């Protein structure tokens, strides 16, 4: 790895039962505010799969390091591919943050077991500014997520 390259890692855990509770309590309103159509379909709407995807969104935020305004949940999408592996697809402010931080592709790994779901997101910074990056300079959009 060259001296101008670095790595960012984010990880997060989500209790599957809490996602199930949210679905039971708020139903479609919860699903549509947090997950994309693809995310819901690709895991069959199962709480464990959705919890893993929520963990991935949180892990991605840890990689993007926003301050102040934060990307929308749905702009941090977990894409499931035919082989079963997943990748992160960014749009809107999330994509802007990644671009300005010099981040390349965000790789993601999901897991769930015994009521707990987790995700790890890793991104390669192509340029040195990644280390010097001041996220406070990136607040340029009013949209954000909780």
């Amino acid at each position: 790895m060259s001296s101008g390259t670095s790595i960012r890692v984010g990880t997060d855990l989500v209790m599957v039962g809490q996602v199930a509770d949210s679905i039971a309590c708020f139903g479609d309103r919860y699903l549509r505010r947090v997950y994309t159509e693809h995310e819901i379909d690709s895991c069959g709407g199962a709480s464990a799969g959705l919890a893993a995807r929520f963990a991935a969104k949180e892990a991605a935020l840890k990689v993007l390091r926003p301050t102040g305004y934060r990307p929308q949940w749905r702009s941090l999408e977990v894409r499931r591919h035919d082989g079963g592996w997943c990748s992160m697809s960014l749009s809107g402010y999330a994509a802007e943050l990644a671009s300005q931080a010099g981040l390349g592709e965000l790789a993601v790994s999901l897991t769930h077991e015994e009521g707990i779901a987790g995700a790890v997101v890793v991104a390669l910074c192509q340029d040195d500014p990644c280390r010097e990056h001041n996220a406070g300079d990136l607040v340029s959009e009013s949209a954000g997520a909780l």
Partner: protein
Amino acid sequence: MDEKIRSILSEHGRFPIDVATIGDDEDLFAAGMTSHASVNVMLALEEEFDTEFPESMLNKSTFESVTAIRTALAGLTGS
């Protein structure tokens, strides 16, 4: 309004402590509310106050304290 906000925080915020012990200006996330729990709080507030938070307000800062939530709701509902 504060009583309803605190009731919702107690029911959906999943705090490890009694919500009554959290000051109006205290950081709710520092007090233990997770991002996922804050989504539930937002949805419950929308139901209770018959409103919808626009995307421009869906930031941590909107839900970071009782005072912040009260201010946001007042702006949305005009009360």
